[in-house]
C-alpha cells in the first residue's frame, strides 16, 4: 500500500505537474506556429521572463498576497501576464515583423527567434543573476499531507499549495482558451487564419490584429507556465533549452496547430518523463519473493536516470517524426 502512495506521489502528481506546465507552454508554441508558421524558440525564455516579472513584483509588494489568502506570486500573476504579453507584442513588432515583411523563409524566423532567445537570456541574467531564487518571498509554501484511510498506509499523499494552484490554473487556462477559440469573434478569426491565411485576409480579417492577439495569448500563457514552474521548484534563469525540447515535442505530438492536441501532448510528455525516471523496483518490492533473482536484486529499475530526463522528450520527438510527423491529431502546419 505504501508503494502505491509512493507511486501516486512520484508519478501521478509529479507527472500532472510537469504535464500541466508543458501543456500550457506547448499551447503557446502551437498557436504561434499556426499563425506565423515558425517554431518560436524564444518561448521558453518568455516563460522565464514571466516568472521573473512575478519575482520582481513579489519582491516589491511582498505582503500583497496575505490580503486575499493566496501566495503573493499568484496575486501578481495577472500583472506579469500583461507585462509578458506586452513584451511578446513588442518583440514581434521590432524583430519578427520586419522579417515577415521581407517574406523570409520560416527557418530564418526560427534563427531570428533564437537571437531573441539570447537577448532575453542576457537581459534576465543581467538583472536576475544566474542562481535560483524562490518565488515565495514573504509567505510559506503550504504542504498538505493526506493520510489514506487504509490499514498499513503509513505514508501520506503529499501535495503542495503551488501544485493545487497549478491544477486550478491549468484547468482555467484550458477552459478559457476553448471558450475564446470557439465562441469569440477574434478566436474564430485566429482559427480561420491558421486554416487559410490568404482567405482570412480576403475576408477582411485584419491579420496584423490577429498576430498581435496571438502574441498576447502566447505571452500570457508563457507567463503562467513559467510562474507555475518556478512556484513548484524555484525560479531558475537558465533552463530555457531544457524546457524547450519537451514543449516542442508536446506541440508536435499533439499535431502542430492544434491547441488541444498540444495540451494532450504536454501531458503525454510530462507523464512519459516521470514514468521513465520512476524507479519501478519500488513497486516490485512487495512481490520480491516470486520474482527472478536478477529482477528482485536490482535496486534501481528506472528507464533513465534523472540526469538523462531530456532524452525522454527527444525520444518521443524522434518517434513521432518517424512514425507520424503530423502528430496524433493530424496537424495543420506541415
Amino acid at each position, binding site marked *: 500500500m505504501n508503494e502505491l502512495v509512493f507511486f501516486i506521489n512520484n508519478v501521478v502528481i509529479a507527472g500532472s505537474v510537469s504535464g500541466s506546465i508543458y501543456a500550457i507552454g506547448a499551447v503557446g508554441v502551437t498557436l504561434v506556429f499556426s499563425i506565423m508558421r515558425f517554431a518560436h524558440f524564444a518561448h521558453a525564455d518568455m516563460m522565464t521572463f514571466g516568472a521573473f516579472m512575478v519575482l520582481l513584483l513579489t519582491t516589491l509588494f511582498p505582503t500583497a498576497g496575505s490580503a486575499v489568502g493566496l501566495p503573493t506570486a499568484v496575486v501578481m500573476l495577472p500583472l506579469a501576464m500583461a507585462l509578458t504579453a506586452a513584451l511578446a507584442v513588442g518583440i514581434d513588432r521590432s524583430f519578427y515583423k520586419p522579417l515577415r515583411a521581407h517574406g523570409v523563409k520560416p527557418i530564418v524566423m526560427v534563427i531570428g527567434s*533564437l537571437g531573441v532567445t539570447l537577448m532575453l537570456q542576457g*537581459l534576465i541574467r543581467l538583472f536576475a543573476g544566474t542562481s535560483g531564487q524562490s518565488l515565495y518571498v514573504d509567505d510559506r509554501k503550504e504542504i498538505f499531507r493526506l493520510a489514506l484511510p487504509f490499514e498499513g498506509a503509513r505514508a501520506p499523499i503529499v501535495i503542495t499549495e503551488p501544485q493545487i494552484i497549478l491544477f486550478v490554473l491549468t484547468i482555467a487556462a484550458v477552459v478559457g482558451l476553448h471558450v475564446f477559440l470557439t465562441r469569440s469573434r477574434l478566436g474564430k478569426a485566429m482559427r480561420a487564419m491558421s486554416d487559410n491565411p490568404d482567405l482570412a485576409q480576403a475576408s477582411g480579417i485584419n491579420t496584423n490584429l490577429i498576430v498581435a492577439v496571438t502574441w498576447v495569448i502566447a505571452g500570457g500563457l508563457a507567463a503562467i507556465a513559467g510562474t507555475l514552474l518556478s512556484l513548484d521548484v524555484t525560479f531558475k534563469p537558465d533552463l530555457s*533549452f531544457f524546457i524547450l525540447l519537451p514543449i516542442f515535442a508536446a506541440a508536435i505530438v499533439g499535431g502542430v496547430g492544434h491547441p488541444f492536441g498540444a495540451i494532450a501532448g504536454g501531458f503525454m510528455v510530462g507523464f512519459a518523463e516521470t514514468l521513465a525516471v520512476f524507479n519501478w523496483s519500488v513497486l516490485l518490492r512487495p512481490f520480491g519473493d516470486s520474482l527472478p533473482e536478477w529482477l528482485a536484486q536490482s535496486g534501481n529499475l528506472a528507464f533513465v536516470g534523472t540526469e538523462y530526463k531530456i532524452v525522454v522528450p527527444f525520444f518521443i520527438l524522434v518517434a513521432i517524426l518517424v512514425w507520424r510527423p503530423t502528430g496524433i491529431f493530424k496537424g495543420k502546419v506541415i
Partner: protein
Amino acid sequence: MSTQREQRSDLVATRSRLPKRELTLFVALLVAVLGVYAAMGTAYSTRMLVEAACYAILALGLTIQWGYAGQFNAGVMGFVALGGFSAMFFSVPVNEAFWSSELPGELGLGLLYLALAILAVFATSRLDRLGVPRKLRTLITIALAVVLYLVVMSELRVVTEEIHSRVDFIGGLGLPAWTGWIVGGALAGGIGYFIGKVCLGLRSDYLAIATLGIAEIIKAFLKNSEWLTRGTATVSPLPWPTPGPAEVGFTLARALYLSLTAVLIAAIFFLLHRAYHAPWGRMIRAIRDNETSAAAMGKDINRRRLEIFVLGCILMGIGGGVLGSFNSLFDPQGYLPLNHTFLVLVMVILGGPGNNLGTIFGAVAVYIIWIMSEPLALFLMHSAVDIGQAMFGWDAPGNLDSRALQARVFVIGLLITLVLRFAPKGLLPEKVKHHD
C-alpha cells in the same frame, strides 16, 4: 560551345567583381589581428588565432549546411563535444590500472549483451515476415525492447560504476591526436546521419528542434558518464600532435599548432571549393533555391540533403577535435550553446552563408570581437558601478563580473537579429552565378 562561352563570361564577371570588397575586409581583419598582437602579446594572440582557426572549421561545417543547403543546425555544440571527446579518448595515455584488471572483460561482456539485445529486438521487429500479425509483432518488439533495455542497462550500470570507483575512468588509447579527430568527425557524421534521416524530409524547423535536443543529450551523456570521461572532474592534459609548450615554449608551440590548423583549413577549403563547383554542388544549390523544380528534374532531394548535412556534421566533429586538443582539457560542462552553437552561427551569417571565404573571415573577425569584448564588458560594467557609486551611492551586487559577461549574450542575440534584418547575405555574400 555555349557552355564554354558561359564559363568564360563567369570568369570575367568574377574577376571584375572579386577584389575590392574582399581586399578591404581582409586588410581590416589583418590590421585588427596586428592590433591584438601589439596590445596583448604574442603568446596570447597566437592562442586566439588558433582558437579562431578551430572555429573557422566549425563555421565551414555550418556554412555548407545553412549556406549551401538551407539546413539550420541548432546543435553545433553537440557535434563539437563529440569531436572533443574523441580527441580526448584517442590521445590520452592508456590507463594501465584499467586494462590490467578484469574490468575490460566485464565491460566487453556488457557491450556484447547490448549488441545481442539490439540484434534480438531487430530480429523480433522482422517477425511479421514469418506470418505474425503486424500489431502483435509491434507489441512483442516493444515489450522485448523494454525488458532487454532494463536488463542490459542494469548490467552495464554495475560495470561502469565499478570502473569509476576502482580505476577512475577507462583512460585513453594513447594514439596520436589526429586519429581522434578523424574518429570524432566520423562519430559526429554518424549522429548527423541519424538526425538527418529522421528530419530532413520534414519542415526545416524540425531539424532545428532535433539538433538542439541531441546537442543537450550528447552533453548530458558526456557529463554523466564518469567511467568514460571523468565527467565534471575533467581530463587534462591532452597531448598535441605538434611539439607542446613544454618542449619549445608557448609561442612557438602555438604557432606550430596554428600552422597545422591552417593547413587543415586550406585542405577543407580546397575540397569544398571543388565540390561547390562540381555538378554535386550545383545540384545542392538547385535544391536549396527551388526544391520543386529540382524534384521535378528527378533529383533525389533527400539523399543530397542527407549528404550535405552529414558532411557538415563531420567538419564540426573534426573542428571540435582540433579545438579540444588545443585546449588540452576535456570538460563536458565547458560546452555551452552560446559559445559553441550561436557564436558559430553569428560567424556564418555575418561572414556570408554559402561563401567559404566569407565564412572564414566571419569566424576570425567574430572570434576576435568575442574575445576582446570580455575585458571591454568588464571595463564598462566597472565604470558604470564607479559612476553609480560616486553619483547615487549605489551599492553594486557582488557577482557583477559574471553579470557583465551575460551582457555579451544579449549582444550576440541582437547581432543575429540585426544581421538577419539588414544584411541577410552577410558581409561577403555568396556569388550566385546565373546561367540565363
